[in-house]
């Protein structure tokens, strides 16, 4: 095999066609008679009130911040896991220590109330 990414690239081109074609066909053969009421925003049969694109309160934003930290850190575990057999004991235990620190961090946040909705 030359390069598997070439395969992925070709696959990507093929799958780009897949969702595109039905939408196109549908656009060609489906009826199209828009009117203001039909195109109104759905809000259970009542005219929508106020703006949708507001400063919506995302009550889990603290989670989102934590997620970035933990996600980056947990990715570090992937290469560590793959190379586990080639490591000496000290290196392996360093990884273990890393997980322990992560766990400690999670416990700390939990205790601080970071894992609650605001």
């Amino acid at each position, binding site marked *: 095999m030359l390069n598997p990414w070439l395969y992925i690239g070709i696959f990507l081109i093929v799958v780009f066609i897949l969702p595109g074609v039905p939408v196109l066909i549908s656009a060609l053969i489906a009826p199209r008679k828009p009117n203001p009421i039909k195109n109104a925003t759905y*809000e259970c049969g009542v005219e929508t009130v106020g703006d949708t694109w*507001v400063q*919506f309160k995302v009550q889990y934003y603290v989670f989102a911040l934590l997620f970035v930290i933990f996600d980056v850190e947990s990715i570090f575990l992937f290469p560590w896991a793959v190379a586990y057999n080639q490591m000496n004991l000290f290196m392996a235990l360093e990884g273990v220590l890393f997980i322990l620190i992560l766990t400690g961090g999670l416990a700390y946040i939990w205790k601080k109330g970071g894992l609650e909705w605001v």
Partner: protein
Amino acid sequence: MVAPSKPITQDLTERFPGAVSKDTRPGYEGYIVSANKLTEVATAIRDEYGYEYLASVTGVDYIADGKLEVVYHASKMSGGASLNFKVQAPRDGEPEIPSLVGVWQGADFQEREVYDLYGLRFSGHPDLRRILMWEEFEGWPMRKDWKEVYYEQDAKPFKTRWPEGSVYRIEEKNRFNKNVRYPKGFDPRSFKSDGDEKLYALMRGEHLPEHQRINTDEIIVNMGPQHPSTHGVFRVVVKLDGESVVDLKPVMGYLHRNHEKIGERNTWLMNMPYTDRLDYLSGMGNNHGYALAVEKLIGSKVPERAEYLRVLMVELNRIANHLWAIGFLINDLGAFQTPMLYLAKQRELILDIFEATAGSRMMCNYMRFGGVVRDLPSRIRDEDTLDFITDLVAERLPAALDEIETLLTFNEIIRTRSIGVGVLPAKQAINGSAAGPLLRASGVPYDLRRADPYSIYDRLDFKVCTRPNGDVYDRYLVRIDEMRESIKILKQVLRDMPASGAIMDGESKYTHKVPNGESYGRVENPKGELGYYVVSNGAPNPYRYHVRAPSFINLTMLGDLCKGHKVADIVVILGSIDIVLGEVDR
């Protein structure tokens, strides 16, 4: 609002000389309270006399006397007959009486309804808007001088809509000239209601306390009328801060057909099938309440077997209704209909009994004044009727209930979703006129079948099921318990029912001479206290026909129950209240 340890027995007229007098009209009972003392008297009735529960508020238009009357029915939680007191106001000008929302939260929607239909203002009401009709509606439809487009006579119970058998649309004959009045400058095509805007303006006012808020915008979302889980065309307007509910107001009336006004045009008997359409899931119970109210006026004596048949049907109906309620509650929790269809299997069998007996599965129209219309058939589904019912009651239903319990009651997700959600404290439940499972799940052992026994319930052995916490889970459990109690009742009914005998008091009649007077008949319907307040003036049709609809009044507390919860909880709480829009909007 603690009930006194010893309610005083002094008569109201002595307690409030000059402000309260006995209602002396023939056929009437209770007291007439003068409007300026109403709040004081009501507080005394609640606190000193121990009538903690305001069952029903309704208006009557006595056009001949030039008076509008508001009729209140209050009950004691310990049971006994309800206390009936009235306030009168002149019908001309802008009549106004004090609102009782401060005394009983449960008066909220009912006063709005009276205002909506009679144009009687309640001073001090926090949110006196129209509730069933739309905001711009002209006139007060339940007043006797308000003429509907179709029916212009005061009462025409017997005249056909299509004289000489020729069918035409009424609009062709009547160009809306006589009694449709458009306001000045009104054009139906460019009409845009500002009722919604009024409501939104109300909701914009309320905010979370400052310290709980980060600087974000709150949005107002309409859930319903076209929403998959509002159980019909019911609408709640929700103000959300993120996913948390800040404020919630129910909007109803999308299915309003002015049941009561039509009821006043129908003859007494013609209303019987019409009651089926109220809470269409428990038609038998609706029939029963109306029959009781009118029988009180007529004074008929229901034969033994008919009483048993009534209780048999009503309790079967209770099970059918609760099965449905639980099924939909779990469906609202997101269970993709499986529990509902399991439960529907048993409900179908109950409906089979109804169909074989009354001729219809849901719109049963089974009871008459003084009895029931048909005896049990000899066979149902090629089985002997009694065998069929006994098998259902003794084997299938208990097995089905056990199955539900094993599958649902201890389901981890159901428990996390429903425990502690939508908690209704006992005090508020009583004060807000909650009824049925909603009230009993809050730990209040109030069941009309025990509190004010009607029919043969005083002979039957069953217990009033309560649960202490008043959350969604408890409402679910109370319904299960009630079904088990109903099964117990049904077993006794099947054991004690006389094998044969009359099922009607005298002849079955089309027209009934109903003596002058008023009467309030109430039954414990699956959804709560269903009351019928009827007034007769001797005519072939009721002078006043009011339905105290449990679904409608239970919704009074929806806003309070949902505040602080998440969007997903709204539908669950609504589902746990168990409403039927036919009854809410009437």
